């Protein structure tokens, strides 16, 4: 029975060690800077409009087809305040369907979508996981504030087929 006593020793030692769990709703463990929560849309504070132009690249790249978007002519462009010819009119992400893969962020040419640190999904209404443009932008503003987010250089990255993805890490580090 010697080995059994050894086992009893292991558990008894653990009895006097500190606990490793956290009391979740009250206590949150730190989230890694790279953590991929729900995708959110970013807000351009300079021009007071979203970065997103509704170009549909992320929507086509999404493996689960959880997003949809519509674009419109940008009124601020006509006034000369913005360089964006088109702007997003409506954007919806079904967060219950999103698999948090981060592909939309990678393919976006305008730094318009980011994986936020939001990860709590529970809602009290059926189908309440569909986030519309306003919600996504609100979540995005929180994320931008939290991370001190800066655009990674939208214009330069706007050459879809030529960019090598080896360059992304350096930019990511700068953003963090």
């Amino acid at each position: 029975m010697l080995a059994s006593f050894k086992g009893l020793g292991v558990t008894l030692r653990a009895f006097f060690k500190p606990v490793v769990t956290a009391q979740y709703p009250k206590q949150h463990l730190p989230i890694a800077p790279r953590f991929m929560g729900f995708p959110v849309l970013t807000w351009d504070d300079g021009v007071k409009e979203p970065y997103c132009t509704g170009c549909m690249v992320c929507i086509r790249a999404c493996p689960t087809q959880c997003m949809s978007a519509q674009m419109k002519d940008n009124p601020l462009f006509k006034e000369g305040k913005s360089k964006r010819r088109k702007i997003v009119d409506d954007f919806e992400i079904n967060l219950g369907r999103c698999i948090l893969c981060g592909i939309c962020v990678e393919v976006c040419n305008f730094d318009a979508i980011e994986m936020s640190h939001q990860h709590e999904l529970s809602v009290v209404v059926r189908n309440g996981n569909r986030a519309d443009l306003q919600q996504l932008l609100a979540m995005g503003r929180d994320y931008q504030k939290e991370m001190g987010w800066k655009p990674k250089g939208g214009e330069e990255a706007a050459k879809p087929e030529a960019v090598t993805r080896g360059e992304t890490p350096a930019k990511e580090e700068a953003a963090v």
Partner: protein
Amino acid sequence: MTARDIALIILQLTVLVTGLITVVLSLTWLERKALGRLQRRMGPMVVGPHGLLQPAADALKLLVKEDLVPALADKLLFWLAPMVVFVPSFVVWVTIPLAGEVVVRNMDLGLFFIVAFSVLAIVGMVMAGWGSANKYAILGGLRAAAQLISYEIPIIMAVIAVIMLPQSMNLVTIVDDQRTIPYAVLQPLGLAIFLLAGVAEVGRTPFDIYFAESEVMGGPFIEYSGAHWAVFFLSEYINTFTIAVLVVLLFLGGWSFPLMPESAWLGFLWVVVKAYLVVFVIFWFRGTFPRLRIDQLMSVGWKILIPLSFVNFGLTAFYKFYELPWWALTVSSLAITVAAGYGLYRRWTWPARATAEERLARARAYRRAEVTDAG
């Protein structure tokens, strides 16, 4: 019997029931807390300070839950089984003293009464298993019958060996006889047998075969819900506490060791503290050991515990008959315990350790040879 006597009995029984339910509630909380700490987590924390009100919340939940009866169940057996399991576990408490006078009815044949009644629960298990009309329940019920009957024998033999020392079945006499030396010192073998068989009797790890969650998913209790399940639960925890208290009374000197002043309340407290410590050991087992298989359980019972309990019995008889000094019994009993434990260790662990070491050596040699080849 006057009306006053009847009223007194009713009062005593009410106090007993309330006390036992309080004990059960405290045990569930303690078990979850103790297991939590053994597993580096906190256990219940939300309801009340440190989850203290969790047992009450659980009890409330169980009582308001729907009591489901399977369509094909034998209704009578299904409804009766929890009672049949609960009543014996409660009745034995009539004669268990928690201090010199803190007892409902002290009997001269108290131990006999306890042993006789505790066996009855088996019937309830089989009834639950059969009445549920569920294959897992049948497996569990039959396992329970086999297990509980097998482990009744070592318990009885260990109890007989204890009875021989003070020549009495009266628990108060047995405890009073341990004023100087508790029987745990005289019969370490008896203590080991009684504790192991007792743990098996209440079906706790490593002997939780008949309701093993990963195999038969609750065994006889699989179809029970709500208040009926709560009754099973209650009796399981009362049984655990009974075994702990019996260990305290029979082997750890009850309220009389080490020398206590003649105060019933202090003695009572002392017994309860000791009993909770024994219960903690049982929880500790649960937090450590895997479960045996049914055939291994049987062979442990019949091939190890029962022979050992007869050896214990014979040893005690020898000591009594030749009036040897008390340390002779201690030494011989301890020697047999250690030898049996070591034998089991050799038998079960040794071959595996040897092969493991040999394989590791082979793997290391293989690696070295390869590395030298490459380099």
